């Protein structure tokens, strides 16, 4: 099995690259081969501090298989300790200290692809887990086959359930959604943080083909990602937020 994955990202308009708080893997265009392939995307919350650090730790843990599909507290705890180590120990002004006490929050969406053979039949399978509003959409033959964990654009809010860097907050029972499905050789998977996912689903609901626009990004047809997002922001059809997309084409 091999996969071709390409990531695209852009900070919120008016913010610098260093203020971008999404996280994703793989970081660059990548052709990946393997028995089981993992990809992940995360979105650190604007209203908490050091949330970009927390988002990166979560993505890294998932793709290294330090985190399973239940995002179990005992697997999150080492990430929390690591986050604490990174952000504490500095002398901070009063507001930064207070803010830090609330912890950082992030969404996380992880997916794994694999194949199984039984009785001469090849089964192509995928499985995903999510906390929050980062989304996966599977597209086949010009139609959406699956959207996860959010299926309608109207369901996005600015107050999602997210994973906390503090165990006392929601560490014992973080809200996790799981799903699984089968993939085909011509399928494309799109992993997106909320602003892009909301636009994608809304376009689809209106009869549009957003996947066709995203398939052509940065290929020979050459519509650059930043030009696309700039134009969507100008038309006010996408929220001004950090935007991240991973486009994955899987082959048997």
């Amino acid at each position: 099995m091999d996969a071709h994955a390409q990531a695209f990202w852009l900070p919120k308009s008016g913010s610098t690259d260093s203020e971008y708080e999404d996280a994703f893997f793989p970081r660059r265009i990548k052709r990946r081969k393997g028995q089981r392939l993992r990809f992940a995307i995360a979105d650190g919350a604007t209203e908490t501090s050091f949330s970009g650090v927390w988002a990166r730790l979560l993505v890294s843990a998932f793709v290294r298989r330090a985190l399973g599909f239940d995002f179990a507290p005992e697997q999150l705890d080492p990430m929390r300790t690591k986050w604490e180590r990174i952000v504490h120990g500095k002398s901070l002004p009063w507001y930064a200290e207070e803010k830090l006490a609330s912890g950082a929050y992030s969404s996380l969406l992880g997916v794994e692809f694999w194949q199984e053979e039984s009785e001469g039949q090849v089964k192509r399978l995928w499985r995903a887990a999510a906390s929050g509003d980062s989304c996966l959409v599977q597209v086949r033959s010009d139609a959406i086959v699956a959207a996860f964990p959010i299926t309608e654009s109207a369901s996005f809010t600015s107050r999602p359930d997210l994973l906390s860097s503090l165990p006392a907050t929601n560490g014992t029972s973080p809200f996790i959604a799981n799903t699984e499905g089968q993939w085909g050789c011509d399928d494309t998977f799109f992993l997106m943080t909320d602003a892009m996912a909301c636009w994608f689903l809304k376009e689809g609901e209106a009869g549009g083909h957003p996947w066709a626009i995203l398939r052509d990004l940065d290929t020979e047809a050459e519509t650059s990602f930043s030009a696309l997002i700039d134009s969507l922001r100008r038309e006010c059809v996408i929220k001004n937020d950090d935007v991240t997309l991973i486009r994955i084409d899987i082959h048997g």
Partner: protein
Amino acid sequence: MAYSAEISRGNPSCLAFLIDQSGSMNDPFGAGEGNQKKADGVADAINRLLQNLVIKCAKEEGIRDYFHISVIGYGARVGPAFAGALSGRQLVPISEVGNSPARVEQRNKKVPDGAGGLVDQQVRFPVWFEPIANGGTPMRQALGEAKTIVEGWLNQHPNCFPPIVINITDGESTDGDPLPASEEIRKLKSNDGEVLLFNVHLSSQRAAAVEYPASETGLPDQFAQQLFRMSSALPSYMVDIAKKEGMNVGEGSRGFVFNADMVAVIKFLDIGTRPSALR
């Protein structure tokens, strides 16, 4: 749709606080329980509101200027009421507010111990205002001052999220009926909606706290009823958020509280993703 403008450093909004510093603020608060004077209650209310606002805008690199803040005191005089380094300033970016409290106190705060109990934790509590109680209650003049400041802001920021004016008082104006002046403020608008005027009524009455009522029926006195009438209705998006926070609000709820704080309003301001579990 109104009240949907982005609040960002490129498109900041404005919050104006009006603080009653009249002589009657020397009277006990809530019938004197805990010996707290109304002036102490007002100072605590404004310090807490500013603290929450600063924390909301804080990120690891510092405080982002999503808001500019004005604080007008009214009592023996009407004018800018910041203490310390910001003294005399009329409109201050939130980053400067956060970095320039008059002093920072150490206070105890109850925090979860992770095992279902609470423990005391020392926290730093910034103070921008000291309790002051002196003179009459020129609320009408203060509202006029707020109108001038907000009008100036709107001229420069026509597309901003509508400014919010929060008036903290014991309710009894001594320079005439404040209702027309409050209507003048509520008529002002940005391209995203009308300016919001909210009122916090701190009273000596031994009456139960009231939060965001939809009717003046049942309010404890004529001053509470007057302040209710002066207050804007909560925009529907705020009502939705307040309901999710478990607050008892509905269509027609006004931005008015009686013997209660208004810190929840800070949660209503949308500067980006806010985790549902964040308190």
